[in-house]
């Protein structure tokens, strides 16, 4: 590998990392603002204009809080929990294609960190790892509420991963590839977006994504009304901050994933009909992609401030008795349709 290639990837990784962190930071503000607006309030508006410095203040506060490691906690695992949570949250974004290729001089730079040919599987693996952070943290705290939260997180993530995987199988049957880059490349324009061929699959996928991110209405692992704080009951200071942060990063990454798998990623309508040069198409594509991501993040928050939390048995019912059968039906339907399409059209 040449040095320039490594350098190029390194720069891209740093940029993606920084963008991820900044977006996660400002998601916290956006969440509170949106919550405010939906409840006819202003939300935080004292730190900076429009509250723009609020995330910095919150971060600073987290750093200055006292770090408490409970006496009977398993020290190593207790510290490891949030670390795993944030690392797994960050590395998912590696396979997401942020845009097409940029041509700088005579080099073409791909705006995807790693175009792994099994990208979708990679995402799945990392998401499955993500629950370890929560589980280890909850278990190592040696607190019954934290343990309950951890157990809930584990069983919830197992149940919903199945539904998610099955809904993706139908998508893979349509696209015929496991590489996220290729899946996005196939959806050029507007009519080729996967949402048009897989509406049911998307519905299942987004529901499971909510559950995997532990977002309302599936936020039972940290359900305050029953479990004090759930798996992070014993956490304080920046370790709690890391858990919160990883939740927002997860939300960002799964928004990016949904945008690229179902909503055409960086593709936008009439992208080749406007007579733009390829670099411009790429740049507009990146902007469009981020707009889609922001749309999904907004949707996440919109749902959060609309729906109440599920009861645990309802959660399990929905996962096992509704989503999984639906996903299987979706696979069958997709198969039938593609055969009809192949033979008659």
């Amino acid at each position: 590998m040449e040095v320039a290639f490594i350098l190029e990837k390194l720069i891209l990784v740093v940029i993606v990392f920084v963008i991820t962190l900044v977006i996660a930071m400002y998601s916290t503000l956006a969440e509170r603002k949106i919550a405010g607006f939906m409840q006819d309030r202003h939300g935080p508006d004292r730190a900076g204009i429009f509250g723009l410095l609020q995330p910095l203040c919150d971060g600073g506060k987290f750093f200055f809080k006292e770090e408490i490691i409970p006496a009977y906690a398993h020290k190593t695992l207790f510290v490891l929990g949030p670390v795993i949570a944030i690392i797994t949250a960050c590395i998912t974004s590696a396979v997401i294609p942020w845009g097409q290729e940029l041509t700088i001089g005579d080099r073409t730079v791909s705006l995807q960190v790693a175009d792994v040919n099994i990208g979708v599987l990679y995402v799945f693996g990392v998401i499955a790892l993500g629950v370890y952070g929560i589980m280890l943290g909850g278990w190592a705290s040696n607190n019954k509420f934290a343990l309950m939260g951890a157990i809930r997180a584990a069983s919830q993530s197992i149940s919903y991963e199945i539904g998610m995987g099955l809904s993706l199988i139908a998508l893979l049957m349509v696209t015929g590839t496991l590489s996220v880059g290729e899946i996005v490349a196939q959806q050029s324009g507007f009519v080729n977006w996967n949402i048009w061929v897989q509406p049911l699959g998307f519905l299942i996928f987004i529901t499971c994504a909510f559950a995997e991110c532990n977002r309302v209405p599936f936020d039972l692992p940290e359900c305050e009304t029953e479990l004090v704080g759930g798996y992070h009951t014993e956490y304080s200071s920046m370790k709690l901050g890391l858990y919160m942060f990883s939740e927002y990063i997860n939300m960002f990454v799964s928004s990016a994933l949904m945008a690229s798998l179902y909503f055409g990623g960086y593709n936008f309508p009439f992208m080749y009909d406007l007579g733009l040069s390829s670099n411009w198409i790429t740049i507009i594509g990146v902007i469009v992609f981020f707009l889609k991501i922001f749309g999904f993040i907004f949707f996440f928050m919109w749902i959060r401030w609309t729906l109440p939390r599920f009861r645990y048995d309802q959660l399990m019912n929905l996962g096992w008795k509704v989503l999984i059968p639906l996903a299987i039906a979706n696979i069958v339907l997709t198969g039938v349709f593609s055969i009809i399409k192949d033979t008659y059209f």
Partner: protein
Amino acid sequence: MQSLSNRKRVIEQKPMNIWERIYLPAIVKGLSITIKHFFKKIPTIKYPEQIRPYSKNFRGQHSLKRDEMGRERCTACGLCALSCPAEAITMVAAERKKGEEHLYREEKYAAVYEINMLRCIFCGLCEEACPKEAIYLDGSHVTADYLRKDFIYGKDKLVEPKFDITQLKQENK
């Protein structure tokens, strides 16, 4: 058992029909409600920058008035204390000495005049009872404090500061 009041009602719980059981229409309805609120005008007042004006007949903290020559108007007749439904006012009367004419308007004045702000209900009856137009509830809020004894306001807090009547501007209310 038969209901005697005739107001007993059995609440019927119908099983959900298929439309309700899909759950999605309800979610969409909920989402539309929250998004409507998202664009609604926010009634919150940003307090320190934006202060809501008091109503014209707002009754706040009492003040004991002075006349045009700067003398205290109160003559310690006790009518305010008598009219007070909350028993909030006490006073000790004293006789005006020679040479004190520039301080007190009447021959008898209140040496001590106390209102217990924890008892007061800001009804304004004291203001109405006063024959000398000496007391008005024209201040702002009575502020919070730490000790009960600090809520008993004496003359130091109640009597309005001296002012020069020639400098006073006429305000149109």
